[in-house]
């Protein structure tokens, strides 16, 4: 039966996440925006709280448990499960602060990758490890099949060489999931992901970037210089088997994109709420019933923003719901990320405009959210990549036909 409200069973959990965001995350927001690269020590305690939420059964922490489909054998009826819980909790945490959510120990995007593709032995071994994700290189971003980093077999090990940039939480995490090629002559089929733990000889954090936004989150450049990892650290199959293998690593993105969409939804809602309060104080009340052209321009602008936000929110829930019910959600995941990320960017920027010099000033967080939101339309697949994926799916065209 069609109903677009998540089950009430999640309310208590979502409310908890909101309390954490309101009482813990938001108050630290400006502090770590200003103190870029300082480790938010408060997060250690927060991580324990989030772990507790995850253990409480309903919750999935900040979503780092990834997506594992069809693994609980119960196909009877419709589920609102862990994916729904993940996107809802991420929305709340990012209503608090996107950068701090990205710095949450043990909740990295690498954890999502591990959770999504690791075998049972690896899952157990890597339990409790905070994992970042290292894909991008100085010479390639969206075109992830073009990576130069290599992994050569040597005895029982792989030897990794290359340079990775834009590694979120790359300095603070315990391990990174690195994409590297087993054989550069074999193209994308040879690209595999490897878990490299911090302290492994040959791996070093080269530098940290200074950024437009999400400054609470460290973004690292990591160099691998004859870095040796055991064979058991390869995630998925070691065989170079046509495009199947690469499709496998790319599938990680189907799982992380709804999470990034949820970040955008949370950030956008934060800006909308503050702006609405400001409009109220200025005597402007948006009215859902009156035709927008008969309302003040600011009210009409607000309503248009909230409408796009609503679409982003619902598309994100849809992508999570499909995954919860064991079906492929690649199309909806890309649609959700495309819509949510561009909406969050547009909404936060327009909210600054509506709030004027108050919005532009560091007195409020609006200007920060307008800086933070930009990355959401870039990482885990840019707006253009999401459109490309959506178009290929809708048009049923291959990546050689629609490039």
């Amino acid at each position, binding site marked *: 039966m069609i109903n677009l409200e998540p089950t009430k069973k999640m309310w208590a959990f979502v409310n908890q996440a909101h309390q954490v965001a309101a009482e813990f995350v938001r108050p630290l927001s400006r502090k770590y925006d200003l103190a870029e690269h300082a480790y938010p020590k408060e997060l250690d305690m927060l991580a324990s709280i989030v772990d507790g939420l995850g253990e409480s059964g309903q919750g999935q922490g900040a979503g780092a448990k990834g997506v594992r489909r069809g693994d609980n054998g119960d196909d009877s009826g*419709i589920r609102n499960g862990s994916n729904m819980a993940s996107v809802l909790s991420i929305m709340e945490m990012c209503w608090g602060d996107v950068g701090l959510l990205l710095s949450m120990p043990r909740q990295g995007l690498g954890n999502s990758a591990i959770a999504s593709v690791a075998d049972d032995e690896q899952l157990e071994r890597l339990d409790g490890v905070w994992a970042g994700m290292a894909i991008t290189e100085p010479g390639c971003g969206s075109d992830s099949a073009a990576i130069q980093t290599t992994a050569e077999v040597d005895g029982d090990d792989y030897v990794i060489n290359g340079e990775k940039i834009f590694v979120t939480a790359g300095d603070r995490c315990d391990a990174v999931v690195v994409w590297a090629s087993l054989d550069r002559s074999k193209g994308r089929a040879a690209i595999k992901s490897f878990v490299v733990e911090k302290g492994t000889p040959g791996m070093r954090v080269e530098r940290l970037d200074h950024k437009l936004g999400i400054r609470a989150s460290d973004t690292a450049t990591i160099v691998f210089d004859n870095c040796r990892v055991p064979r058991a650290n390869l995630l998925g199959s070691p065989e170079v088997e046509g495009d199947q293998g690469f499709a496998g690593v790319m599938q990680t993105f189907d799982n992380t994109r709804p999470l990034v969409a949820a970040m955008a939804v949370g950030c956008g809602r934060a800006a909308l709420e503050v702006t609405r309060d400001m409009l109220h104080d200025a005597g402007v009340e948006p009215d859902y019933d009156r035709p927008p052209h008969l309302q003040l321009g600011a009210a009409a602008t607000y309503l248009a923003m909230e409408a796009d936000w609503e679409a982003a929110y619902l598309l994100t829930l849809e992508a999570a719901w499909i995954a919860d019910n064991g079906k492929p959600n690649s199309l909806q995941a890309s649609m959700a990320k495309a819509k949510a990320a561009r909406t969050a960017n547009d909404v936060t920027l327009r909210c600054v405009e509506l709030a004027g010099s108050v919005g532009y000033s560091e007195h409020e967080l609006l200007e920060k959210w307008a800086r933070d939101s930009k990355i959401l339309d870039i990482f885990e697949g840019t707006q253009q990549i999401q459109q490309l994926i959506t178009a290929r799916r809708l048009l049923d065209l291959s990546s050689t036909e*629609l490039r």
Partner: protein
Amino acid sequence: MPSPRPSQRGVATYRRHLMGGALAVLNKIAQSRVIDRFGIRKPTERVVFEATKTGFRTVGAVSRRFTRKPSSAAPARLHNRTNDLFDLTPTDDQEMIVGVVREFARDVVRPGAEKADASCATPDDVLEQAQELGLTLLEVPEDAGGLGAERSMTTAVLVAEALAHGDMGTAVACLSPASVATALSLWGDGPQQQTYLPSFTGSEIPAAALAVAEPRPLFDPFRLETRAVRHDDGYVLNGTKSMVVRAADAELFVIAADLDGSGPALFLVESDGGGLEVEADPSMGLRAASLARVICTDVRLARHALLGDARPETYAECIRLGRLGWCALAVGTGQAVLDYVIPYVKERQAFGEPIAHRQSVAFMVANIGIELEGMRLATYRAAARAEQGKDYAREVGLARRLCTEHGMRIGTDGVQLLGGHGFVKEHPVERWYRDLRAIGVMEGGLLV
């Protein structure tokens, strides 16, 4: 033949639940001639309501005798439904009902859309077939002869969406009587329901229209210039309504008018009660809906013509449910655009390859898909909240904003993707472009 009603006096009394309702719909469809007739019967001759007749005025259609049934019986109402899971799966009943409507839209509505647009009228046989599908019964309580046991705005939204995939103008013409039946079910008192509803649950469904819009820029449905003034033991109605669906044929109107300066209210107005003039008002699109203006000049109404209690909340519900219906139509027509442009851009060649292989083209298609899905989900959310008795003003307002903005974008991109071919009537995209401009302009007309 109306289907038999369960006995209310037996040892065990049964209320028809939605499952039963759906079966009744299927039974009705199985008995009807619609299936046999799909695409076979020639449209019957009728006086067309042509564009060239702008300015032609006529008195209201002669109505059947609606004999007032004074009764103290309580009105029949539908109950709210509930669900506690996020779920986008239609019920089995909805699948069945919408499946049949979708076939009708594909086999009858779409093939006839071009002609209906050109002649500014939906052919009688199409209207009859639509009524045989039981469209007027969905939101009428079973106690009043309808099929419903529970309110189901989502069913109504799915039906409207499926019809508009065939053609928006035809969908509006087919759904207009249902909007009046729904208004009577929602707000009619016992006597009003017993006076009018039997016509909508019988075999010859009257043309009927819900008239809200008025012909002026920056129209606000909450500030009407059509006025009802209390007079003797009733009301006197004056003013002009616009975009009234099939007004020349309508036997019964629900007309929105300001009541004594205290705000808008709804009135039941029979077409031949005197004082009504109908003026054809062919517009940019929705031409199959035979839009017209209805000019009320000292229309005298009895006291019992007031529909509902004239509370602001009742009227606001009417406006919101109407907008929800238009959102559903936008989604259906938007899907029609997407389904049409996909094969086109894959076949159309330029610079030695299909234009779909170019990102500038492919990304337009992607954005149609993305925004359309957002429109659809926002519309469903509003409908689901409404049928569960939850507050839905916000959700309807946002869905309308999305469908107005992105619906029109989809309309214009549909034409753009076909280039010059999209601009000529050889393809339906120019019609969808014209129809989609109605979203955000139209008020009333539908009720889900």
